[in-house]
């Protein structure tokens, strides 16, 4: 009998069927890779296993017993623990306090039993020590002082510290680690496997999956489409399974003629990401950037726009060279759409009008005066032009649906009338109709001689709207391809580093 059996699991969020009958069998003492593109349903499935979500229908068996828990604590008591992509730790507490947070052994009613606590911490830390490792984690060190990979290990130890761990879920554990630290993590995972723990391993890096996984299950559009033994398949085949059928999508692309170069980026490196990026963006073109989450695409746009520090390299906009502030960039005609609509893209408590006119308040009245009537007239014209669904221009941006919020954020750039559009995931999480509207806007911009740099995780979109595409991988931007010369498969291979 398998350690973990997932049978016919379904989960619906509103109108979206996130999981549509998922099957998964994982054994004790194996590393089982869960593969799929963004939005395939991996996270939803893992959250159900970790107790953060409840399934709508279907069955989960853990060691032949029904696994039906409410909440992450109950899941961990039952023996299923999860380590998230960004470890959730308290930086001001020590390693020991983090490992035992919420599980502190108590003596005489109120006091933490320090000796027992240390014993358990040491036991948990021993599990995550790579064999032959000389440096080890000290229980008393503050977590804030640890490196990302050490934090990853603390999070692992924390997952293992509770009751006997039977299933351990690792979500993109290496995405923020440099190569040698990833190596160390693989050894730790190998050790856990030999102890008979079943490890569900989620990663976009296929070469890494090939190295440490024994078996795999591929999810696509909420369904499990294939599973098998790692040795019996090829990375090419896995990529094919993940990408699957081509999703039909109406992309607008009119005749475009690329003009003069408008932005030149040379060997640009940020504080952490990107490590190195070189490209030239022309008027009248849409240049796409593909890559995995955390590969440094967003950071590239932020560095170009002056939101993040630039460590080295050059950004040349027109005649101006060098780093700059967002205000300076806007004055030069460069605007950016943030990937994070809610936290950064919009001031949600402010009105549509305030959000739309914030970057360009001049010209709405004499001497820096802003006449509400004029600002509202501007807003109304964009509401009409982009078909933004709303009650009136003075309602808070928070009230709008995701698609309409995105249109509002885009409208701000259109109103500012920039020449260079840095668009970060402009269609993330928005409905198909809004999506088509956004594509229409992008196409019209390029046709009018504006330049668009488009970051997207959605490959059909990149191939559908871009003239040229480049792939970012672990902070480095690859060569720029003509969109006609590449396939989704090719981009996925380049992004994941699977030898094509």
């Amino acid at each position, binding site marked *: 009998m398998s350690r973990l059996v997932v049978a016919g699991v379904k989960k619906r969020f509103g109108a979206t069927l996130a999981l549509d009958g998922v099957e998964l069998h994982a054994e004790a003492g194996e590393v089982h890779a869960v593969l799929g593109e963004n939005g395939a349903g991996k996270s939803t499935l893992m959250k159900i296993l970790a107790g953060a979500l409840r399934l709508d229908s279907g069955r989960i068996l853990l060691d032949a017993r029904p696994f039906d828990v409410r909440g992450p604590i109950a899941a961990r008591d039952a023996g299923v623990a999860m380590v998230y992509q960004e470890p959730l730790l308290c930086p001001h507490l020590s390693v020991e306090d983090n490992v035992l947070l919420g599980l502190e052994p108590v003596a005489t009613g109120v006091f933490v039993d320090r000796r027992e606590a240390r014993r358990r911490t040491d036991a948990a830390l021993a599990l995550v020590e790579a064999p032959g490792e000389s440096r080890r984690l000290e229980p008393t060190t503050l977590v804030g002082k640890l490196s990302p990979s050490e934090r990853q290990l603390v999070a692992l130890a924390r997952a293992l510290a509770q009751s006997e761990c039977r299933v351990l879920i690792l979500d993109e554990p290496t995405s923020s680690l440099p190569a040698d630290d990833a190596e160390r993590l693989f050894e730790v995972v190998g050790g856990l496997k030999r102890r008979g723990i079943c490890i569900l391993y989620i990663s976009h890096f296929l070469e890494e999956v090939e190295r440490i996984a024994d078996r795999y299950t591929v999810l696509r559009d909420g369904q499990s489409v294939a599973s098998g033994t790692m040795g019996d398949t090829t990375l090419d085949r896995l990529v094919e399974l993940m990408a699957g059928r081509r999703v039909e999508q109406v992309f607008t692309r009119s005749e475009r003629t690329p003009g003069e170069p408008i932005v030149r980026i040379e060997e640009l490196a940020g504080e952490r990401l990107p490590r190195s990026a070189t490209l030239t963006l022309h008027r009248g073109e849409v240049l796409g950037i593909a890559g995995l989450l955390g590969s440094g695409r967003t950071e590239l746009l932020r560095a170009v726009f002056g939101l993040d520090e630039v460590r080295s390299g050059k950004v040349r906009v027109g005649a101006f060279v060098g780093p700059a*502030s*967002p205000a300076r960039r*806007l004055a030069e005609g460069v605007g950016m759409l943030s990937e994070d609509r809610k936290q*950064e*893209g919009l*001031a949600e*408590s402010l009105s549509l009008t305030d959000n739309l006119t914030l970057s360009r308040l001049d010209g709405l009245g004499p001497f820096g005066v*802003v006449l509400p009537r004029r600002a509202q007239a501007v807003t109304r014209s964009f509401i009409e032009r982009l078909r933004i669904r709303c009650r009136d221009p003075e309602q808070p941006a928070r009230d709008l649906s995701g698609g309409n919020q995105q249109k509002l954020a885009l409208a701000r750039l259109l109103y500012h009338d920039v020449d260079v559009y840095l668009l970060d995931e402009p269609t993330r999480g928005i409905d198909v109709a809004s999506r088509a509207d956004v594509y229409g806007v992008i196409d019209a911009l390029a046709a009018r001689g504006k330049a668009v740099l488009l970051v997207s995780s959605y490959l059909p979109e990149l191939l559908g709207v871009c003239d040229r595409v480049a792939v970012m991988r672990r902070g480095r931007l690859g060569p720029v391809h003509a969109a006609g010369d590449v396939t989704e498969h090719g981009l996925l291979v380049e992004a994941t580093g699977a030898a094509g």
Partner: protein
Amino acid sequence: MNLSSLKPWLQKPWLGPLVALIATYALFVALTPDTFARGINLVTMARQTAVVGVTAVGMTLVMVHGGIDLSVGSSVALTTVVIARALESGLGPGAAALAGVAVAVAAGVINGSLVNWLKITPFIVTLGTMSVLRGAAKGIADEQKVDADPQGLDAWMAVVPPERSFQLVPWGVWLLLFVAALAAALVNYTKLGRHIVATGSNVLTARLCGVPVPRVTVIVYGLGGLACGLAGLLEFATLTVGDPTDSIGLELEVIAAVVIGGGSLAGGQGSVVGTLLGAALLTVIKTGSTHVGLPNWVQEIATGVIIVVAMGVDRLRQRRQ
């Protein structure tokens, strides 16, 4: 008039404090109709609101911007001392007033700069300058009240003489209304005002939209300082001495006025009109309690309860929307 045309008015942030003010006023009129309802009492209350009101208008800008300024009480006291010392040294009343206000503006600009460059939260920065400015005031005053001939500055807050009854209230009260009108216009109808609101609402969005956040911060705290300076001038006009131990605890009353008026400690929200109403409400409670004969300690409890209740009611109202 149908309901839908009323709706925009029902959503105004100052509606709550306005209702509270009218209700409280009506309550005290009912309790002590002989004394409280007299016109002269209205004038007295307006006078008593001037200093808190002017300071609170400045604080409204600071809090809408997402900050806070705990040093306002010290700044007001320092201004009275500087004005007194300046008069003492032979400067004319205009120059002395200017000197006092300039010192307060400088203190505000320093607050803003520290918030910017040290990246310390405004609460901590102004907690520090609260002590620094208080100390400076005591030092300049040699730790005692500074007596100086006010040379007419006291007229700002003096009871209006009968021959100028058209003036209704002392100039200081008119100054409060003038400052409030300017600040309200600034917030609602200028580029700077929109930048202040946007920064308080979401500083990341403001940065993304090219708002020069550091510059806006310095200007906002500078304007807060200007308000303290003007309030200090009115305070000197009331006391006619420079008093380094004056206005201790003023910051709490001022913050209460802003918060009652719809301001939020989280920034992005606040209304100058609401703040004025909040300041007036505090005065009405104080004066009314005195008229009714409630001891001081009961007034303090009542004030505290009303602040918390006002906030609770406002929360409920917002959640309903």
